[in-house]
């Protein structure tokens, strides 16, 4: 039996003005468990808290009910006061007789009556309260960053600079990501590689950062503060400890027909390759699908000529297992496939390219050495048409319903760069809306129009038709002039929608991090927790969470890093004790609860059970208290009522219902 003390606050006249507090005190004195009841003008004041402490000591109270303002206001205050007075801080219930009573009712009779009922409900709940102890779990002082693009690099650098070890796992042979493929960056037009490579080098040289390239996350177990991750290091067939990066193997490799991933397939590379000149690490990998040695068994030239003896055809994939306290996901994006957009003739003409392909064409290290030329005949284009929103803002099932966010700006950049370098080239941009919210963004776009005379046409392109003479007939509309336009172009550039890298699905499943219908990882709160996944200990960096440009990506990467550092800085995690708990004697092991758990906090174990003399092995649900956030979804899904929520148990809520309906 509880020994309950009830403390009714006047809150000056805020409560006492509409609620007869003296009558409330008298009315609840006879409630079950109530040993002591009193009122005081300001319970939350120092004096009020002392009053509570005194009563706890004097009457040997086991729990207290405070009838005052909203628990959202002072629950923490009174919990602390109770703990200081020597009782468990979870043996405190608040009856909200201010916001939910005195402030909304004018009639004292009505207000008092309601206050009594609310107090009774709190007392009924407290009668079923049990002391709860926050749990503790360890924090491994190391972070994992999945993805080695600018987002991953930035997060890793920030975490490492704070003094924690970081591992970066990157699936391609080099870090650098999409940004390494870009030529110039808006709105300042500085060269992408010039600002990115120093960061790559810094990450590679950082004593706290460990980079696993050509590697993938294979398995994740554990939970916040204590993840265990299997990483598959794919066989490079080149020993990175021996390789000097001289590049001779790539030069001599006889198999040079493989499409270059880095150049978006616009040209080819050798079978043994580094994706680009500034690759980090500067250690090539052998692509076994194209390597003659692996295909036919004959060749072996690279091994023969390698002075360092680094080439090793026998190398095997290696799985390493590491422990982490925090995980940052930075898996980035790719452009969508255009096979459903026949009207733009992308698959029919080499001169219809995506914007990312144009980046490579414009880049000095690209397939055309930076000369703007048509891929079909190498001629310089005189008329270029840009088409916006290709696959973005499409709700017809062919593309993506969202705005890809970066296209308006990079198209302005492309248009401007072309007009700058090739002033006799005409550039037309077909747009639906030009969206330029960002520092110096609209000014940038206006420069394209005002200084560089880029022809912006409000309207869309309906069809691109390759002509026998090799030109492209573009049929579009100008909605301002209300005219249909037919124009000849030498090159068409499609602002192709971006989507999360397909690998993210698998990673999200492993992390039990939720993902939306577009494969973007979901943040914990759209406004207030934008870089945290609902899965504790998992943070989101860059485009895996939603479309972003470089500055935004870097900002978010930093934010994700700070959140990870905040976690790693703790020696122990205290866990919210209001978590779900399965009664193993009642549990059917049916898995229903795990299906609704947003945190992956429920697992199943076969354990030996003694159920009133029946000894048997049963499959039962086990809640990981470090992961459970206490929403209670499982408690309702559970058919047998085995799952219950501490602090909001079934019986407690029913007791409140009963008290209110009495």
């Amino acid at each position: 039996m509880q020994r309950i003390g009830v403390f009714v606050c006047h809150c000056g006249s805020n409560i006492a003005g509409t609620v007869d507090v003296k009558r409330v005190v008298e009315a609840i004195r006879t409630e079950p468990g109530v040993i002591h009841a009193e009122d005081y003008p300001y319970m939350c004041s120092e004096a009020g808290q002392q009053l509570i402490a005194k009563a706890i000591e004097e009457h040997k109270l086991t729990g207290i009910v405070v009838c005052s303002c909203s628990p959202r206001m002072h629950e923490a205050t009174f919990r602390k006061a109770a703990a200081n007075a020597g009782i468990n801080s979870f043996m405190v219930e608040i009856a909200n007789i201010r916001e939910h009573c005195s402030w909304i009712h004018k009639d004292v009779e009505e207000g008092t009556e309601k206050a009594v009922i609310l107090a009774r409900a709190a007392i009924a709940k407290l009668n079923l309260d049990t002391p709860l102890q926050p749990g503790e779990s360890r924090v491994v002082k190391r972070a994992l960053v999945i993805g080695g693009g600018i987002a991953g690099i930035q997060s890793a650098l920030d975490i490492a600079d704070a003094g924690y070890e970081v591992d970066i796992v990157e699936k391609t042979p080099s870090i650098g990501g999409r940004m390494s493929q870009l030529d110039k960056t808006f709105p300042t037009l500085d060269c992408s590689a010039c600002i990115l490579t120093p960061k790559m080098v810094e990450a590679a040289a950082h004593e706290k950062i460990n980079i696993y390239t050509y590697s993938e996350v294979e398995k994740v177990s554990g939970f916040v503060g204590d993840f265990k991750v299997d990483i598959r290091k794919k066989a490079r067939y080149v020993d990175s400890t021996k390789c000097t990066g001289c590049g001779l193997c790539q030069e001599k490799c006889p198999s040079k027909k493989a499409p270059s991933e880095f150049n978006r397939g616009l040209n080819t590379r050798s079978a043994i390759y580094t994706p680009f000149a500034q690759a980090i690490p500067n250690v090539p990998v052998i692509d076994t699908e194209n390597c003659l040695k692996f295909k036919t068994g004959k060749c072996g030239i690279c091994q023969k000529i390698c002075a360092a003896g680094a080439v090793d055809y026998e190398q095997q994939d290696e799985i390493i297992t590491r422990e982490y306290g925090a995980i940052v996901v930075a898996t980035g994006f790719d452009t969508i496939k255009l096979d459903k957009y026949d009207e733009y003739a992308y698959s029919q003409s080499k001169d219809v390219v995506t914007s990312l392909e144009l980046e490579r064409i414009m880049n000095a290290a690209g397939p055309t050495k930076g000369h703007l030329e048509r891929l079909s005949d190498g001629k310089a284009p005189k008329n270029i048409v840009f088409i916006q929103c290709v696959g973005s803002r499409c709700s017809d099932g062919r593309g993506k319903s969202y705005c890809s966010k970066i296209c308006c700006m990079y198209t302005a950049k492309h248009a401007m760069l072309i007009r700058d370098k090739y002033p006799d080239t005409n550039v037309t941009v077909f747009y639906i809306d030009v969206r330029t919210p960002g520092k110096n963004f609209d000014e940038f776009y206006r420069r394209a129009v005002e200084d560089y005379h880029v022809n912006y046409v409000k309207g869309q392109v309906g069809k691109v038709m390759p002509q026998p003479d090799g030109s492209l007939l573009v049929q579009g509309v100008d909605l301002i002039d209300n005219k249909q336009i037919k124009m000849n172009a030498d090159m068409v550039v499609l602002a192709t929608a971006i989507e999360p890298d397909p690998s993210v699905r698998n990673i999200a499943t492993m992390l039990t991090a939720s993902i939306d219908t577009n494969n973007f990882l979901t943040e914990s709160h759209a406004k207030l927790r934008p870089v945290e996944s609902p899965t504790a200990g998992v943070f989101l960096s860059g485009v895996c969470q939603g479309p972003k440009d470089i500055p935004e990506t870097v900002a978010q990467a930093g934010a994700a890093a700070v959140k990870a550092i905040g976690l790693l800085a703790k020696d122990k995690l205290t866990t919210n004790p209001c978590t779900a708990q399965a009664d193993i004697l009642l549990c059917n092991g049916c898995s229903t609860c795990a299906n609704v758990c947003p945190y992956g906090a429920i697992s199943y174990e076969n354990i030996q059970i003694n159920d009133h003399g029946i000894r048997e092995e049963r499959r039962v649900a086990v809640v990981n208290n470090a992961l459970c956030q206490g929403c209670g979804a499982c408690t309702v899904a559970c058919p047998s009522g085995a799952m219950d929520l501490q602090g909001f148990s079934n019986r407690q809520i029913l007791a409140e219902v009963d008290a209110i309906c009495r």
Partner: protein
Amino acid sequence: MHANNQAEKIKEISGVNPYKCMKCGKCSASCPSYNEMDIKPHQFVSYVINDDVEALVESKSLWKCLSCFACVERCPRNVEPGKLVDAARQLVVRQRGMDYLQADEIPELLDSELPQQLLVSAFRKYKR
């Protein structure tokens, strides 16, 4: 709501939700009859939104649309203005007490190169 019955009827017949339109103009960009039309395909949507069905019904466009459905095919928002045109036509057909073409109007419209079959099918289509 000041919905007049006609606009509602068009929405009902076509099953089109004109509010989904984001005014990109891809319908007009795709339309092979664009130059023949007085009200352009993308405008059909705003006419319906603005309840100005009268103008649509009286427009030349209604009878210039080839029903090739390029606009339906390519509309990124599933608004599908071609269906609005078709619905407006149906509205006309349903309402008209008289035939669209009177038999005596035909000779002057006749073109010697016009196939006979077209005439027959035109009669079928526009006769009440």
